[in-house]
């Protein structure tokens, strides 16, 4: 029993070291990645803006129309959605 507990303690110390080692490797990898590839106002953002300003809301309406059309099993040409206001 004594021996086992000391084994368990050994294993635990070793394992915690490995965990910290692995996760520290990940931290440095992430930091490097983030430094090399910084965040830029992404191509998604403009879309959002356009929608916010455009009265046509084409993107969103198209998406909703398509999803409803898929649900209805009918062509998106057969109905039209209005009145979805961008916040």
């Amino acid at each position, binding site marked *: *029993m004594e021996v*086992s*507990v000391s*084994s*368990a*303690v050994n*294993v*635990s110390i070793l*394992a*915690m070291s*490995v*965990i*910290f080692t*692995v*996760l*520290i*490797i*990940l*931290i440095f*990898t*992430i*930091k490097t*990645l*983030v430094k090399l*590839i*910084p*965040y*830029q106002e*992404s191509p998604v953002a403009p879309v959002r803006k356009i929608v916010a300003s455009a009265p046509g809301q084409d993107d969103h309406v198209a998406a909703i129309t398509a999803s409803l059309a898929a649900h209805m099993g009918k062509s998106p040409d057969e109905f039209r959605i209005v009145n979805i206001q961008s916040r």
Partner: protein
Amino acid sequence: MEFSFGASASKIIHSTGFSELAGGDLIMIGVGCTLIYLAIRKKFEPLLLLPMGFGCLLANLPLSMMKATDSGGLLNFFYQGVQHEILPPIIFMGVGALTDFGPLLANPTTLLLGAAAQIGVYTTLIGAVYLGFNMQEAAAIGIIGGADGPTSIFIASKLAPHLLAPIAVAAYSYMSLVPLIQPPIMKLLTTEEERKIKMAQLKQISQTVKILFPIVVTFVCCLLLPGVTPLLGMFMLGNLFRESGVTQRLHETTETHLINIMTIMLALSVGSSMTADSFLRLETIKIIVLGLLAFGFATAGGLLFGKIMCKATGGKVNPLIGSAGVSAVPMAARVSQKVGADADSSNFLLMHAMGPNVAGVIGSAVAAGIFVSLFGDMTGVDTHAALAPVIGNPEPGIQAIATVVDAIKQ
């Protein structure tokens, strides 16, 4: 063959479950109903505990052939997905599809909190060895402290399949109890001032980094700890489906119907392994006590490391986010949020706590990988064959055949 009224009646009466209903079965049916009750009334991880409890109920109805070990039975069929380590990785793919690594990438040092919380795993391991479990059993029990259902089931079915039922129950139960277990420990180990610390807004992360991250983690972790590849690799693949922007179809399926189907099969079959034989033992009580210990120490470990980070950063880190390092996504992060808001109602820690929260998932996957590296080979070369004699039928002759057959069955 003739069927007289009397003989037929007697046959029906003798084939009812009542004729075989033992006390142990009744207790286990009670346990199953308790899990169902906790799932529905207390909302304890209902997606898992409801089918698990129902599986337990079905398995313990005598002669129903619904035990995990009833060869040819329905739940035995599902159970093979646990035994052969198929279901947990597929579920983990769905979890990956549901996970947003953004907060972690915005503040990568919080990975250390996910590391620190693993101390719960090892205090439990030591405790379990002290209580007489062997090293592999102790490892499987310890991983309860990782607070990850699929990881616990994966490791238990690999290292100690005979303890799968109590380990699964303990893992999922304590995960649901996080909102009860953690706050007292959090208030005990932090000061009012610490709890009031507000953290700077997280910076935004390039989509490219979000795409590269799961690939890099797979590469680093699975190369260092190959045993965790099925689990961590599938987790990261699910996340890649989410972040890549080109696989919406696969993303939607993995995070909804695929994970749901696998969850039903996993939970039912784990529940069906909860039989009087395997569950009503002293070991179960030990495991339940050790599991609570595991969660407590994991919480404390994360918090104390959070205090260190608070000091090291000159007070920029609120130590409360440390307790989210146990995983139990997203409940532990919500607990950090709530305890922080209790101290100062304008304190929003949720997103900050999501970093250590998902770090905890990676941390316990790494812990699982270490256990596989250390103890995985001790179950023999072919894990699948090794499972059979432990779980299989008791007759020695049939058992030998069962070993071969189980190894053959996919």
